[in-house]
């Protein structure tokens, strides 16, 4: 770093993050995916739901990079449009989980006593359920909708964040700067959100990034089972459903959407690990 550059925590973090080649690659892949899915109509000449009875189940070719499906739709186009679903689900579901988890963790840790006991027992109880069972039960009872899916994945995934935030708050609570704020007459809410929260956020950031990966996997599994995103809207999971039905004749229907999930989830995990390493004071060189 040159001497005349101002060194801020954010810049230091960024410099450490970008020295990690894998994490940087992950970030670039995610950015490209976002751009591709937003500019889907420019990327491909086909529309995701035009049925073409003359070109059914064609293997990959220069006209159809990923082949066509059982209704003659271009698989590459459907994978690109399907990215919208996966990226959206990841963000919104984890957003909900982080907000709920952070609020629960903040209040449990800050107030302690019976509030803490009640909230943490709730966390214990929620952690007992096989999450996928719980999600399946609720989703199947509701009208199929991508919004429900995001909300349910979020509401069943906040417990880890709550525990993390609570632990951070407990260690911050007795620090001098909190005492100072209290002496200055700051209210509980001001202390919680102005002074405690910003200091407890870094572990949350890591777990949120890894959570996005988990949410994408869950959504694709739900869509694969036929209770997630409903056709004709393409999602990586529901393309794989027809992949299963035609597995004997059309391997490309199974291969490409799965690879898309794999690459996306891998990228988020790499970015998550990169953030963890960049934030970890023990690894600062």
């Amino acid at each position, binding site marked *: 770093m040159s001497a005349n550059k101002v060194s801020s925590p954010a810049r230091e973090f960024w410099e450490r993050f970008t020295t990690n080649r894998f994490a940087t690659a992950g970030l670039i892949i995610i950015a490209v995916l976002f751009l591709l899915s937003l500019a889907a109509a420019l990327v491909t000449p086909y529309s995701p739901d035009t049925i073409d009875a003359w070109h059914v189940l064609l293997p990959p070719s220069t006209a159809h990079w990923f082949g066509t499906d059982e209704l003659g739709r271009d698989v590459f186009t459907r994978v690109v449009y399907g990215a919208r679903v996966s990226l959206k689900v990841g963000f919104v579901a984890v957003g909900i989980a982080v907000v709920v988890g952070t609020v629960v963790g903040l209040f449990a840790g800050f107030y302690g006593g019976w509030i803490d006991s009640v909230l943490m*027992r709730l966390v214990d109880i929620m952690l007992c359920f096989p999450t*996928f069972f*719980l999600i*399946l039960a609720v989703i*199947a009872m509701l009208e199929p909708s991508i919004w429900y899916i995001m909300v349910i994945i979020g509401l069943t995934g906040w417990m880890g964040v709550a525990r993390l935030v609570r632990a951070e708050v407990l260690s911050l609570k007795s620090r001098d700067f909190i005492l100072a704020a209290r002496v200055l007459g700051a209210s509980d809410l001001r202390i919680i959100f102005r002074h405690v929260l910003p200091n407890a956020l870094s572990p949350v950031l890591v777990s949120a990034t890894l959570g996005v*990966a988990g949410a994408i*996997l869950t959504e694709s599994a739900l869509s694969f089972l036929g209770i997630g995103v409903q056709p004709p809207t393409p999602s990586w999971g529901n393309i794989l459903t027809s*992949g299963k039905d035609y597995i004997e004749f059309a391997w490309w229907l199974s291969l490409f959407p799965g690879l898309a999930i794999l690459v996306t989830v891998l990228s988020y*995990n*790499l970015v998550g690990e990169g953030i963890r390493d960049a934030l970890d004071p023990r690894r600062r060189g």
Partner: protein
Amino acid sequence: MANYLIKRILMLIPLLLGITLITFTVIHLAPGEPVEMQTAMSPKVSAQSRARLREFYGLDKPLHVQYAKWLGNLSRLDFGRSFAPDNRPVLDKIKERIPITISLNVIALILEFGLALPIGILAAVHRDTLLDRAISFFVFVGFAVPTFWLALLCMYFFGVKLSWLPISGIHSLGSEQLPFFGRVLDLAKHLVLPIAIATFGSLAGLSRYMRSTMIEVLSQDYITTARAKGVKERVVIYRHALKNALLPVITLLGFSLPALIGGSVIFETIFSIPGMGQLFYQGVMARDYPLVMGILVIGACLTLIGNLLADVSYALADPRIRHGKG
């Protein structure tokens, strides 16, 4: 130790109550009723007979009354009768499905630990070498592979392309006629893929965890002391370090249970295995309330038991708790 056990078991009571409460709330707050599923098909069903059906199932009562009644029945291990046409007791239906799911998951769990622990130790001992990097790469890919997709690919390669293994069910047609050994072989052939997939699903997480606890232990002072005394590296790793690195892994055993059970929905549906996961999926699709609630409660209780066993074995293994007041 006895105190610790008693405390631990008493703590289960509020958790059990909470599990039933959440199960009940989740199922009953969702819109849509089983009566609708049964009547929607035939428009001839009158409002009266619909009301009679609701009354028959007790759905006309206020929610807290329904909950109290359900909870009372649960305490006598009565999970009610299935809404499906066969109308059999839920517990019977679950009982005949549980053995296959549990045995699949136990085998997968044993394989998972048997493979993940050595992999994790290997990576930790050879930290930052090419071997460690290769293992890390495998672990990251393993984390990201959707299990159902892997199942599809395996079905394609081993089932369709090579036709080495059957890809659905747990018996071949006419396998009853085979001699005992033949039947066992037939069953084993059907289970190879599902077990392999279930194992692979959680291999990555566990080996990563093992690696990081092992690295942490290897940096402790007593390891340096042992090495300084001239203890052989093999003894340092397998005698001194491993014991302590294994402790936190025990707790993970309990935690991995809900994930495994949850995962069984996916692979049992894909491979058409008649286990609890498949039963749950069918129950959910048919809005079979008593069955869905029964499996949710039993699934959560299995996790509870798993956690208890893990905690107790942790306490037994850790002298600080074993000899302390707990």
